[in-house]
């Protein structure tokens, strides 16, 4: 039986994550946030439980990462301020929604080249093995990333060099608007990893199952067995990004997945197994709402970085402003 406190924490983070994403969507519509905004709604169990379970190493992930960043420990207000493009954002407004990096949380959260971060995770895992560290590396990617060359190169190298690397495929079945089975021979992307390494499947909408699976996988890579591949089946309720109306899916399909909603499932666990009352749950909701409201106020009131800093951080050592 998992610790009640962990279960409550996972639930509270999922609730916070969903409210954060709806608030981000609302402020995107209002014009406070621009660019591409990829929402995690529907996939919170996977994002939250993976971040909490993987506590011995670095995380490399993609552009759908606001909830992961928050679950990893980055302040929600620093994430929201980044979405607003403000100087108080986690990347000082230089990165935006898709690029939330924070090495102090071992979080490299947002590569926007599909599959492009996989070789980086492999390299970092090499560094950890080189350093004889107890830390490993977790890399998250979607089913859409599992058809490109970087994916296969990474499976090959991680397995040839027995690197402490956990591949976590968030299979939400759609590569933007293309159903995965239209462009791959099967739905289960772990089949591609089977010749190289041990694979596991987990219900990505079950936070407890994800937590347990990632703990087991983390333990496996820490023991020096080499890489492991976990595939979590899940679903995003929204389009690929806010600008995508998702007309390529049927309303029935979305409804089926909404019946497997990760937050609802966890709420039932809390009520049925741990006797949480309606007011206990409302307290969690209220706290999440307050956190999101604070983040919004912080983001709105924060200044933009001055244009005089445009050239900051192009280089670390030498800054050349060319005439």
């Amino acid at each position, binding site marked *: 039986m998992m610790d009640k406190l962990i279960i409550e924490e996972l639930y509270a983070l999922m609730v916070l994550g969903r409210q954060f994403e709806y608030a981000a969507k609302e402020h995107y519509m209002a014009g406070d946030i621009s660019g591409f905004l990829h929402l995690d709604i529907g996939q919170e169990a996977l994002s939250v439980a993976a971040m909490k379970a993987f506590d011995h190493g*670095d995380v*490399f992930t993609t552009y759908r990462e606001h909830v992961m960043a928050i679950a990893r420990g980055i302040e929600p207000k620093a994430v929201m301020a980044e979405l607003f493009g403000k100087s108080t954002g986690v*990347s*000082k407004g*230089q*990165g935006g929604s898709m*690029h939330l*990096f*924070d*090495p*102090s949380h071992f979080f*490299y959260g*947002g*590569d926007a*080249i599909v599959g*492009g*971060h*996989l*070789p*980086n*995770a*492999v*390299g*970092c*895992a*090499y*560094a*950890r093995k*080189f*350093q004889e560290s107890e830390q490993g590396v977790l890399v998250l990617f979607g089913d859409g990333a599992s058809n490109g*060359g*970087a994916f296969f*190169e*990474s499976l*090959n*190298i991680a397995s*040839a060099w027995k690197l402490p690397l956990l591949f976590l495929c968030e299979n939400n079945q759609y590569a933007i608007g293309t159903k995965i089975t239209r462009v791959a021979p099967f739905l289960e992307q772990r089949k591609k990893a089977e010749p190289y390494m041990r694979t596991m499947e987990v219900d990505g909408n079950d936070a407890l199952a994800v937590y347990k699976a990632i703990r087991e996988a983390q333990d496996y890579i820490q023991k020096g067995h080499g890489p492991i591949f976990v595939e979590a089946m899940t679903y995003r309720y929204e389009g690929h990004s806010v600008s995508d109306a998702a007309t390529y899916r049927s309303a029935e399909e979305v409804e089926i997945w909404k019946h497997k909603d990760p937050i609802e499932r966890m709420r039932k666990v809390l009520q049925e197994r741990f006797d949480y009352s309606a007011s206990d749950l409302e307290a969690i909701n209220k706290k999440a709402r307050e956190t999101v409201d604070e983040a919004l106020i912080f983001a709105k009131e924060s200044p933009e970085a001055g244009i005089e800093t445009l050239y*900051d*951080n*192009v*280089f*670390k*050592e*030498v800054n*050349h402003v*060319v*005439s």
Partner: protein
Amino acid sequence: MLYREALNRAIDECMAVDPTVVMLGEDVGLYGGSYRVSEGLVAKYGEKRLIDTPIAELSIVGNAVGMAIGGLRPIAEIMTANFALLAFDQIINHMSKYHYMSAGKITLPMVVRFPQGVSKQLAAQHSESYEQMLAAVPGIHVFAVSDVNYAYHALKKAILMDDPVVFIEHELLYNKKGEVDLNADLDPFKARLVKEGKDVTIVSYLKMVDDVMAMLPALEEETGRTYEVIDLQSLNPVDYDTLKTSLEKTGRLVMVEEDHAMGGYGAQIVSWAAEKMFYALDAAPLRIAGENVPIPYNRKRELASIPTPEKIKDRIVAWGAENGL
């Protein structure tokens, strides 16, 4: 010391002083490197630090980026520039941008090295030059050094610096001989004044500097003029100050590069001169560059596709005559 030995020495010394320096690429370990740049290093530092990779260029650079994030100081070797194209996603989308996108939180102390250019009849997929694309990318330094002594110092600086560097070599420079002054304090960001002169400034880099120097005595004799030769060394950033000083003296600019003329790197230098040095110029600049064709296999056609010492001389003589030199 040979050029490749100077590079080897630079890597060796960096590995000796910094245990986080690693080198990865195809055949860099047991084989000693396709151009013998890493020869002998695996015996000294082991396979953990001289990492033989699969033929997967995207991963060679992509892994190096991850190693740098993870606290190592990697040197990624790509066998030739054309193969580096497979790694351009990593160079341009990852290596050059992580420091900026993360507001300085991620630093990438790493070097990507590869040779480029026309060697001898290696044909279209092993002979090209890509400095023009890479120098156009903010966030990476691009070195292309022709001098053996500077090559040693520039590579050392590149390895030990905390910013990412693309270090471009040329296949025909590896066996070039030169003296290396181990104690010299050389700045690879500065252009090198190869030879002083007062009538024309010839700007070049990498192997073309040697081609310019090869024809220079004949050119000076034939024209009765003296030519100043500048080796850029760093293609991004550019040491415009050195160019400016020279052009203020000579008033005439010749740009020599091996790459295709269309969109070639020299266009940047000529464009700069037109914008910033217009009133110091006494003649329209001359650009000598390669033809806009894939590099052919046949030796005569291959040589017809790039500048050679004879062609460089003839073009400058004709241009000088047209411009009252």
